[in-house]
């Protein structure tokens, strides 16, 4: 044969991967620096296809990086900055130790810093790439902006995060791109559609965090460093697309209004400006003064046929719906009570074209008072309120969220003060067939389709004295409920009598051996055929088939379980109501 003997692990996949420790040694970096570099450059480990081959025959758990990635890191100018920083820290420590304060000051002044611009550009060569990856950046910045300005991380980072998030919210308000909102137990989810990308982010509730000890804040800070840079550039670009001034400036008109009132409350101009921006109550200044409302760009009509035409129509329809949703709250005037989360509600309402205001002592930027007669809705989150105006609805905040998700103004009756709220459903769930769909969702879908209050109307017909006054609404509901109950009971009793009675044998059509029988037989035959065919499956395919069927069965089982739970719950609640009624009487 001849030739050199081939050595193991010197070619093939073993040479394409490198372990973390080796990579670190190659780059001559400490573990912390390596981690930082990986985070900034977006280098992640890869799972080799044949782990044992790559691991040189060992099965020890190791993380592998692509060798190409590590080679790519070798040329990164930021690595030098890391080293400079290390030297700086050493010098500073020395100066401190020697109590040479001038030296400390000098060193401090010349602290080496680095910029991440080139890395952002390199990681996201196009703007859309960057936009696609902004979900995590948004969530992170929103989290950091809620941190207290003590300990944990630099104040500059927090203020920067706050600034960027405010800019983002202002952009979303101006571009009206919010689509879905969801109040979860973790925080509030928002979903916006920006330049065709669906962007989801989570904002925690405005409470002080109790900082966990088992979290490495350095890692988070490194991520935030990267994210803020990315986020800033994205904001700039987004503002540019809307012809807005960046950094954002309030409309000159709005600014003058605000200035007169609140100037004396804030020590620093910059501080108050950020506050004003974050109030979200005023529109932003544009680079080119345009008309108040830009005419909506109409979808051009193209001569098309067949499928294209259908697509086109669908798109047109979608766009119309979109526009309708964007004008959801237009013309409405909201007032936020002080106990509702101001920022999120103001953000959502403004996104859909409503006017919002709040108490002056709550935040800067409130434009009108509670006493304003033109207010249509007041959002209140307390069981009762003393002084009520007759010409406005007092509703709970969930109405806003549900309406946005339903893309229509929901009936306000379910959301009045003190009323038990209907469940708040996640707008992100898209049920496939076989999945469990909660009845509220079905009702909502019916509403959206335009079948308004089908059941309720029926019941209303039954109800002779149906007042539209809201104070009586609760009682009405009770009444209707009672009716329902009665109906159900009747049905049940009927069923019972049916079961007991011996009726003259009513021969069902499929038992007579006519059409039905055939159908049933055919069905059975088919089922048996299938069973026999399954018997003849190959072992491998059988395994796969069984697995798929198992998964399907599990989903149906879960759905059934949920349905059963719902049923049990309704039964108990009905029984309770009945008892209450009995007690009353």
């Amino acid at each position, binding site marked *: 044969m001849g030739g050199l003997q081939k050595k193991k692990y010197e070619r093939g996949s073993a040479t394409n991967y490198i372990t973390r420790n080796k990579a670190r040694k190659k780059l001559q970096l400490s573990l912390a620096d390596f981690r930082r570099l990986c985070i900034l450059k977006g*280098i992640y480990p890869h799972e080799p296809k044949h782990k044992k081959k790559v691991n040189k025959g060992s099965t020890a758990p190791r993380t592998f990086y692509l060798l190409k990635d590590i080679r790519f890191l070798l040329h990164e100018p930021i690595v030098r900055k890391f080293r400079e920083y290390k030297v700086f820290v050493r010098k500073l420590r020395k100066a401190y130790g020697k109590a040479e304060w001038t030296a400390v000051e000098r060193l401090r002044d010349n602290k080496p810093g680095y910029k991440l611009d080139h890395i952002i550009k390199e990681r996201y060569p196009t703007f859309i790439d960057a936009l696609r990856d902004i979900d995590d950046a948004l969530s992170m910045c929103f989290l950091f902006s809620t941190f207290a300005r003590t300990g944990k991380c630099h104040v500059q980072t927090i203020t920067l995060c706050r600034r960027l998030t405010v800019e983002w919210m202002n952009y979303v308000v101006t571009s009206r791109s919010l689509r879905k909102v969801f109040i979860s137990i*973790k925080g509030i*989810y928002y979903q916006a559609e920006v330049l065709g990308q669906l962007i989801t982010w989570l904002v925690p509730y405005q409470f002080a965090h109790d900082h966990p000890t*088992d979290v490495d804040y350095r890692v988070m800070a490194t991520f935030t460093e990267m994210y803020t840079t990315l986020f800033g550039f994205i904001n700039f670009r987004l503002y540019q697309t809307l012809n807005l001034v960046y950094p954002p400036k309030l409309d000159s008109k709005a600014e003058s209004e605000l200035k007169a009132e609140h100037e004396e409350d804030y020590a620093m101009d910059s501080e108050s400006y950020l506050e004003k921006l974050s109030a979200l109550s005023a529109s932003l200044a544009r680079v080119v003064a345009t008309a108040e409302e830009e005419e909506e760009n109409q979808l051009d009509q193209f001569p098309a046929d067949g499928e294209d035409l259908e697509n086109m129509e669908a798109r047109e329809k979608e766009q119309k719906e979109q526009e309708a949703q964007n004008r959801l709250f237009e013309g409405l005037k909201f007032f936020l009570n002080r106990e509702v989360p101001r920022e999120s509600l103001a953000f959502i309402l403004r996104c859909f074209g409503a006017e919002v205001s709040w108490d002056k002592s709550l935040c800067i930027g409130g434009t009108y008072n509670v006493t304003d007669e033109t207010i249509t809705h007041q959002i209140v989150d307390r069981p009762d309120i003393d002084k009520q105006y007759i010409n406005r609805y007092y509703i709970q905040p969930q109405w806003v969220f549900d309406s946005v998700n339903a893309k229509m103004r929901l009936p306000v009756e379910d959301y009045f003060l003190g009323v038990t709220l209907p469940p708040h459903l996640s707008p992100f769930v898209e049920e496939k067939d076989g999945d469990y769909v909660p009845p509220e969702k079905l009702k909502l879908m019916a509403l959206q389709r335009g079948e308004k209050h089908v059941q309720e109307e029926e019941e209303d017909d039954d109800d002779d004295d149906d007042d539209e006054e809201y104070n009586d609404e609760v009682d009405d509901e009770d009444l209707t409920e009672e009716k329902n109950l009665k109906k159900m009971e009747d049905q049940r009793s009927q069923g019972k009598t049916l079961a007991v009675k011996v009726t003259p044998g009513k021969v069902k059509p499929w038992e007579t051996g006519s059409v039905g029988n055939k159908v049933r037989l055919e069905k059975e035959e088919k089922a048996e055929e299938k069973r026999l065919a*399954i018997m003849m499956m190959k072992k491998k395919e059988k395994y796969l088939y069984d697995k798929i069927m198992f998964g399907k069965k599990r989903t149906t089982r879960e759905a059934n379980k949920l349905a059963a739970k719902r049923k049990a719950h309704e039964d108990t609640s009905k029984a309770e109501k009945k008892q209450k009624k009995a007690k009353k009487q």
Partner: protein
Amino acid sequence: MRTVNLESQKNGTMSKAKEKSAKKRVVEEDDDQLPIFDKDVTEKKAGEEDDADLSDSEESVFSGLEDSESDSHDEEEDAEEGDDEEDDDDAVILDEILTKSSGVETATEPPATDKNTPTDIRNTVGNIPMEWYQDYPHIGYNLDGKKIFKPIRNKDELDEFLDKMENPDYWRTVHDKTTASDIRLSDEQVDLVHRLQKGQFGDVNFNEYEPSVDFFTNEVMIHPVTNRPQDKRSFIPSLIEKEKVSKLVHAIKMGWIKPRKPKETTPQYYDLWAKEDPNAILGRHKMHVPAPKMRLPGHEESYNPPPEYLLTEEERMAWEQQDAEDRKLPFLPQKHSCLRAVPAFSRFIHERFERCLDLYLCPRQRKMRVNVNPEDLIPKLPKPKDLQPFPTTMSLVYIGHSSLVRSISASPTGQWLVSGSDDCTVRFWEVNTGRCMKTLEVGGAVKSVAWNPNPAVCLVAVCFESTVLLLNPGLGDRLVVSSTDQLITSYEPPEEDKEQAVTWALSEGPEHDNGHRLTLTHPKAVKQVVWHGKGDYLASVMPDNSSNLQVLIHQVSKRRTQNPFRKNKGLVQCVSFHPLRPYFFVATQRYVRVYNLIKQELTKKLMTNCKWISSMAIHPGGDNLICGSYDCRLAWFDLDLSTKPYKMLRHHKKALRGVAYHKHYPLFASGADDGSVIICHGMVYNDLLQNPLIVPVKVLKGHQITHDLGVLDVTFHPTQPWVFSSGADATIRLFT
């Protein structure tokens, strides 16, 4: 001494170390100046020098650091004094001593030294190896530049020895290489050497334990150390400084010096993607696996979820007891009556952090997810409807046995059925009516029955315990019955009687009336009997692991028995004759061996891949074979194709007990302990290129499972597509 003065002016708060070094410096300076101040060696100077030396040594005691320095200094000094040095330490010490002594001597008794050498006989060659002067008459030059000559006669070893013996001062005589002279050490010098050897100070009078006076303490003194008045210049502004300041002021005025710019803390943003260059998209980006987005929340995460999403008490307990990784939901769904009541989520930062970790630590891999429609996986088989006829419904149950029915067999005409049961009876049934025509008691649980396949002979072989009984049931055509009897009686024993393994006995009397014709008494318990297709030969199986006498082949017409096998190849389960050719199939626990009876050799060994074969049947064509096994499998062999199964069917849930082929129709049946009989369509084509088509067509159920046993035997009707099955529930069922 100016320097000393200067030093003494120094601040009292000086640290001790500094103090010491300062002192040292003073001394050094002192020494340096010595030669400058007084060139000539005088008595006084010598004394001072001594002092200096002393201070030096004191230094070395205080600070080990300066040791070497002081040494070298000494050397310098020595050189100046005219003495020479050696590299060795001892020599150095000695030199020192010498110089000192010489100094002392010069101090005390100059004339004595003068006696030996006229004046100063210092060698001026310096610190060089004296070997260089080996070949010269002189060894160097004195101060005047005159040669110093070597002594005329060198001492040889003998002289040395004599000197050592005779000279009482020999021990204190030292040879000076530089001057090539012997020097006798004085008493003081010897003392000095002793002291130095002991590590004491050279000076006798020096007290090393003097009480220390803390001159510069750490306490700040109120009064200055000196009362020297302050200089005038310390009051008036410095001119140089003034000049410098004025220069700076001028520069600032002119705008040459600018104040330091405050550092830009807020980052500057610009349009980073102003020029989107498609070439900038590296290959890396194509390889890039983007991180999956966070999962979107479902209904259960809502602050006010529908009631069915809340956990019940048990579910909550289970959730709490689970490990954090095993939980299906990472949080507990909660219901809050209003938005006001929603608390902060305690694990928010954790979750964010975990996401961060996932982003930079999780290995990423593209996974191809194939969306398979499960319906596509089901093989497309011909419809059973198109493969008719086959038995579909249970139409008759033959009831009469009181224990499990081990074996059944149908008559070649298809009119009768014989069954053998554990209740020690053999029953004959009429197939069409289900009537039990005859019941015969035999002397043991019947293991196997077999109807003679020859339609011209009416014989049934029954085996129980160690006996094989040939019965003439007397059913059917009388001519056939009588001819059968005739056949048996017409036997003529041969001339020479051969010793046989089996005794053949003709039944007579009441037994004959019952139908018994021949009794074959075997040496061991018989498990199975099988007829050859022609109906003359009969094989019986006596399973025994330890002997070669397991299978016997009997010829009824000649009443002959032979044992075909010489060797034991394992426990024989069942045997069978080839329907057309002279082949004989023997199934042991795992293999089926095919023997050629004429050539008397093994032709094939079939690997069944089963653990334990229970039954076997051969296709009437003779090219295919099925094996049922106790591990729920049915193996279909194509004998032309391979010795491995062509198809392995795992239709039954439990052990297979019986398998059968139909004589004419392409059907085969298998009965198992799960109480079901599965009918398969097994079409064998005459064309050798076409593989057999095997399709399960019907699952027949009817037998009850008793004692974990279901169907024990299956047989097809010889002409109709009907199947009989006997079960552990003491019934025989007919499926048509």
